[in-house]
């Protein structure tokens, strides 16, 4: 028995035979051809077929992992259609009278070498692998292969140095138990694809070709790869796997299903995220949109105020990746309890009731305007909505909207494209809940932040564990406020949702449906359990 540690990419347990995967070795032979015109035509046909395959992979990946992650296959197609690449292949065929396989392989090697030698540009060096990948595809087609990745007839754990995204996507998923690779990063295309396909995967494992054919266990929870497991351990893992499968099966059946009750009532289930890195789990769990994108990470990760451009890139990435699905981005929500050095906030006795969120934005408009410019610019790239936190009055909303409007007009005047933007507020203060009839007239939506709303309504500090016996997350006062906010939203013709922890509380899902809430935004892992509860409701 051997055990190796690895970095976990996707939770899950796999037990099965290890297959040591090596790239299909297209042994390219160099041979003379008489009819060079026919050979060029043969190359062109193979190229067309490769581009067709890549376009199909792109379409497949768009659905599975979103547009931004699928884009790699478009780039591959463009590389293959590049004039210099094509010219080089044609020259070798016609100039030297050699076969198309050899011409393509040589061209691919030359270009891959050119990129690999760009040692001052890590990004471009990595593109060398992309050129090899597309070249292999054409060569496989020319040699009569279908470009597919055959992994045999029995289910296996694939162990490899590295896997190209096109290889991962094409492997027969019914035969694929897990991936274990030495190379690759947690954010590589292959890692994202593994997560999306729901296959346990480990990277950074010190692999050994001698394992081929042995039994292996991939523990994606603990980040362990066990080779040749002994009996008591193997049995233990069979039990763990059975329990894990049961749970996953239950949830997988819910993917792609509507969030609809037996009587036909629908509700939107969106995801809460804290950074663009969470996007993979958004797709993995089939969220209908993003109900809360906390913009704080941009400020927390940075040593100084993030620039408009940095913010714009992050927001753009999220809205683009989500395609046309709604992305609600909450403006800066920090305060004395979430300290950021360069904001130089004073220490406060009562930070939860202090100088935070929109209060900082309204008194330091230069910070706010930078963020709003980035948000409005990103709105040109998808379905973006802006949400303002910690609102207590109509007057505040009017001020905020005035600033937002002037930012938007400024961008238009500069000739910078902007899209349509919904503007809504968090309902997290009792004041906002009580005034929700008036607030509903000046915003496009409400999202109820139940964590703060509960703390403020019950006057209970959640950080203080001594108060736990008094804390009741289902307190009728909070539930009544939620009902009131929802009713007031509907009276004004706008929608209301919940983005606090209570939204994921499945013992309340039926209550929320009865209250008429239009949306629940929960952490990605909670979407399918809540969907189950919705579909079980009458």
């Amino acid at each position: 028995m051997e055990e190796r540690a690895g970095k976990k990419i996707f939770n899950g347990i796999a037990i099965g035979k290890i297959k040591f995967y090596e790239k299909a070795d297209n042994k390219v032979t160099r041979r003379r051809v008489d009819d060079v015109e026919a050979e060029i035509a043969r190359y062109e046909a193979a190229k067309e077929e490769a581009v067709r395959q890549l376009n199909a992979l792109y379409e497949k990946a768009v659905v599975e992992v979103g547009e931004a992650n699928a884009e790699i296959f478009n780039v591959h197609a463009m590389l293959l259609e590049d004039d210099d690449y094509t010219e080089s292949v044609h020259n070798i065929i016609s100039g030297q009278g050699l076969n198309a396989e050899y011409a393509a392989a040589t061209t691919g090697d030359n270009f891959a070498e050119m990129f690999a030698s760009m040692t001052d540009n890590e990004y471009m060096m990595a593109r060398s692998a992309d050129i090899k990948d597309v070249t292999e595809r054409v060569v496989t087609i020319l040699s009569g292969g279908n470009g597919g990745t055959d992994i045999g007839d029995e289910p296996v754990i694939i162990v490899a140095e590295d896997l190209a995204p096109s290889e991962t996507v094409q492997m027969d998923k019914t035969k694929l138990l897990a991936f274990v690779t030495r190379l690759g990063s947690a954010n590589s295309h292959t890692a994202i694809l593994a997560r999306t396909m729901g296959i346990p995967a480990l990277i950074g494992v010190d692999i050994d070709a001698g394992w081929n054919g042995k039994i292996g266990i991939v523990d994606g929870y603990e980040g362990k790869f066990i080779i040749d497991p002994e009996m008591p351990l193997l049995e233990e893992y069979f039990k763990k796997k059975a329990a894990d499968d049961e749970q996953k099966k239950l949830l997988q059946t819910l993917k792609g299903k509507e969030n609809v009750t037996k009587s036909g009532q629908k509700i939107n289930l969106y995801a809460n995220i804290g950074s663009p890195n969470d996007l993979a789990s958004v797709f993995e769990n089939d969220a209908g949109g993003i109900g809360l994108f906390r913009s704080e990470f941009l400020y927390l990760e940075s040593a100084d105020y993030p620039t408009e451009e940095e913010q714009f890139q992050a927001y753009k990435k999220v809205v683009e990746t989500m395609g046309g699905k709604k992305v609600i981005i909450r403006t800066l929500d920090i305060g004395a309890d979430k300290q950021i050095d360069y904001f130089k906030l004073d220490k406060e006795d009562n930070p939860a009731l202090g100088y935070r969120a929109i209060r900082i934005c309204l008194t330091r408009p230069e910070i706010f305007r930078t963020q709003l410019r980035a948000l409005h610019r990103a709105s040109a790239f998808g379905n973006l909505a802006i949400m303002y936190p910690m609102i207590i009055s109509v007057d505040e909303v009017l001020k905020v909207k005035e600033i937002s409007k002037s930012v938007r007009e400024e961008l238009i005047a500069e000739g910078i494209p902007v899209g349509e933007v919904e503007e809504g507020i968090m309902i997290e203060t009792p004041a906002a809940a009580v005034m929700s009839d008036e607030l509903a007239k000046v915003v496009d939506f409400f999202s109820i932040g139940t964590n703060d709303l509960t703390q403020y309504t019950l006057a209970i500090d959640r950080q203080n564990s001594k108060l736990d016996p008094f804390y009741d997350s289902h307190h009728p006062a909070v539930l009544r406020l939620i009902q009131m906010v929802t009713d007031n939203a509907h009276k004004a013709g706008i929608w209301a949702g919940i983005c606090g922890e209570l939204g994921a509380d499945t013992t309340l899902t039926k209550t929320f449906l009865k209250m008429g809430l239009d949306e629940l935004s929960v952490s990605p892992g909670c979407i399918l359990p809540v969907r189950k509860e919705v579909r079980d409701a009458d």
Partner: protein
Amino acid sequence: MKEFTYVIKDKLGIHARPAGLLVKEAKKFQSATTITKNGQTKKLTQLMMLMSLGVKQGEEVTIAADGPDEDAAIAALKEFFEQNL
């Protein structure tokens, strides 16, 4: 001939995806379009060559167009750089 200079703002520089889109954009015009960095000039219609320049964030490039529709080409390319790079 018309030209403009531009400083790349994108974190990854002229990476694969915008490079591919840039080639598509350049091919829409009859004029010969080029990109120059540190005295090295490449045609904008050549993806591999364009990528081989390895243009990074903060670097300055000169874009030129020469031909019957050079004004339109420069206007479109300028907009492309401002929006994508």
